[in-house]
């Protein structure tokens, strides 16, 4: 009898041990680069929702997109992949797909009906050869012009709609002794400004010809020369403190009334809100000057391939959780971006986001961001020549045009 009880106890212990892991939450280690105040508040929404759904979020935040991507890729190649990792929507994870290192998300996509709520541009961006490889989580737009409403009013300037109006307004501000245009010294912000000029001066067609088709003739055209000329003219309106200035410091100059205008993506709203102001009110927004076109950018998460059944379960659960309507609304409200689902309540978004949504609804008023269309290699070369032109006043618009034509000619 004694033996029997012992055996029973032993068996119970074994059962308990075996049951242990399957009761425990599905662990998901997630690499991302959302480390600023607003960003980490947003990513906490993901963590909370995932934990509530029965998972266990293991946060692996790495400051700086490049550093985070390099760390994640190294771990995937080294055979110790994270459960999920962040990329920018676009071509950044293309090579991982080509090497067969990313998990296929078709099952989750089918079960959740991604095709019903994702826009065609996003669907194209996260799938390769008809299979889904990434979860898009937000839509960011790069080409916004922000202005200090009080400063414009004090100088009797109407919010500009065309480039001529903008230049006239900036001349007035210059005469009044304020910085007309706050610009950061980081090269990526110079390229962001250049892309804004392509879209605003050249319009959607020129942008697509350049970035999608790599059409060298379009770059050599008089329309593109007008783009480089306008960009060159903008050089006269920055101040000499640009070098070493971060994007948020540039936006801060507009928020504090030291500068009139700033070209920056919609993440600038985080700075506006942090200063206790309302986007669209004290700091106004123009969704693209000249031609109004919505630039579609954003972030995705990919799920590296694994043989571990628990990890696969965690991946499926995480992919599902990130796209539920509740998560999408809560996450994007914190992040300052637009939900990827067209079927959620957008009425709570601010005035600027509403203006963006209107453009987004019209397929002819939006473009996929340059990250969707070109490799980091080509975009990096573009960044070099644009940055050089911006900081070398003696360089002519014709030279910039020729250099950009060279980049696309050699990449084709």
């Amino acid at each position: 009898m004694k033996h029997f009880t012992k055996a029973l106890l032993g068996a119970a212990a074994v059962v308990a041990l075996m049951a242990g892991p399957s009761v425990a939450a599905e662990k998901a280690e997630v690499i991302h680069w959302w480390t600023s105040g607003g960003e980490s508040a947003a990513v906490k929404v993901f963590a909370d929702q995932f934990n509530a759904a029965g998972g266990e979020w293991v946060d692996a935040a790495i400051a700086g997109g490049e550093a985070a991507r390099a760390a994640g890729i190294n771990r995937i190649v080294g055979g110790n992949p994270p459960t999920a990792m962040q990329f920018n929507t676009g071509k950044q994870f293309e090579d991982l797909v080509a090497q067969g290192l990313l998990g296929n998300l078709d099952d989750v996509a089918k079960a959740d009906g991604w095709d019903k709520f994702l826009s065609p541009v996003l669907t194209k961006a996260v799938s390769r050869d008809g299979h889904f490889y990434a979860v898009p989580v937000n839509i960011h737009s790069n080409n916004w012009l922000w202005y200090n409403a009080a400063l414009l009013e004090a100088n009797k300037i109407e919010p500009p709609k065309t480039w001529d109006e903008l230049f006239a307004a900036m001349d007035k501000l210059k005469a009044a002794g304020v910085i007309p245009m706050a610009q950061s010294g980081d090269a990526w912000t110079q390229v962001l400004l250049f892309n804004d000029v392509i879209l605003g001066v050249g319009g959607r067609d020129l942008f697509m010809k350049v970035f999608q088709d790599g059409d060298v003739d379009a770059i050599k055209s008089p329309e593109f020369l007008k783009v480089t000329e306008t960009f060159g003219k903008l050089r006269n309106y920055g101040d000499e403190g640009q070098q070493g200035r971060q994007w948020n410091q540039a936006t801060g100059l507009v928020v504090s009334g030291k500068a009139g205008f700033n070209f920056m993506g919609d993440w600038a709203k985080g700075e506006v809100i942090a200063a206790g102001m309302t986007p669209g009110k004290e700091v106004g927004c123009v969704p693209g000057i000249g031609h109004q076109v919505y630039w579609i950018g954003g972030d995705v998460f990919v799920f590296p391939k694994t043989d571990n059944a628990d990890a696969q379960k965690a991946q499926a659960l995480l992919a599902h959780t990130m796209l539920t309507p509740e998560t999408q609304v809560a996450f994007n409200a914190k992040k300052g971006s637009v939900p990827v689902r067209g079927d959620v309540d957008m009425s709570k978004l601010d005035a600027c986001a509403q203006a963006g949504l209107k453009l987004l609804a019209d397929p002819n008023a939006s473009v996929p961001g340059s990250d969707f269309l070109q490799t980091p290699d080509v975009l990096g070369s573009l960044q070099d020549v644009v940055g050089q032109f911006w900081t070398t006043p003696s360089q002519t618009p014709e030279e910039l045009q020729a250099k950009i034509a060279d980049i696309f000619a050699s990449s084709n």
Partner: protein
Amino acid sequence: MKPRFFRFWMAQVALAPAWLIVIFAYIGTILWTIQISFTSSKVFPVSNYVGFSQYTRLFGSERWIISVQNLAIFGVIFIIGCLVLGFLLAVFLDQRIRAESMFRTIFLYPYALSFIVTGLVWQWTLNPTLGIQQTVRNWGWESFTFDWLSRGDRAIYVIALAGMWQASGLVMAILLAGLRGVDSELWKAAKVDGIPTWRVYVHIVIPILAPMFATATVLLATAVVKVYDLVVALTNGGPGISTEVPAKFVIEYLFQRQNLGLATAASTVMMITVLCVLAPWLYVQYFRQPRSAH
């Protein structure tokens, strides 16, 4: 015969781990890097060989050419500047001055900082709207201009200046040790002969210090080739691409621009350049048999 043979093999066995590390970790990875530079690798190494096309692109790239020129400008100014400044500081300290150890610490202190800190300090100091220029203007000299940091044609000199600020103290320490080793009899003899002090330094002391200068130059030269963090912190390659350097080119193409082929081509060129500079020196140091030895 036998004990010698045995000793030889014991030594080889003891050295084996070191040999393995050298062969696999250094030579192996160098060869692998060179191999990748002949492929069209993007994020991952692939074996699609494309001949010298990465090298063609590299030398057609304006950014690479600017990087190499910047390295030359930085290298010459930095090394000569540090040697001159370090020597003058050492001579100054060698005058049996009061509170010598305090000055020695102050001069050597910047070397204890990392290049990142040096870069940030100088970035703030030289920022036209925050640092020296603004301060002097606030004092009332309204037209004062010192905006080298935001000028593409001058920013590389600012980097060399910041580098000199940091590394001169090290040269000073090395040369000071050398100066203390100069035989005091020499000074007395020179004094008896009525030779001016500056001539003693130029014609007697500097030749004696030649090995110290060589050591300092080697240390400074390695800092030049690998300069990366100073540039990242001070200008991040800007304005535009006017202060780019080769090491930054390699890192950026490796990790951000996802072009392993081009990055490894650039690092191979860097290695070949270093070898070209080192080869004559190595030959003189290790391979030329001293005539008197045999």
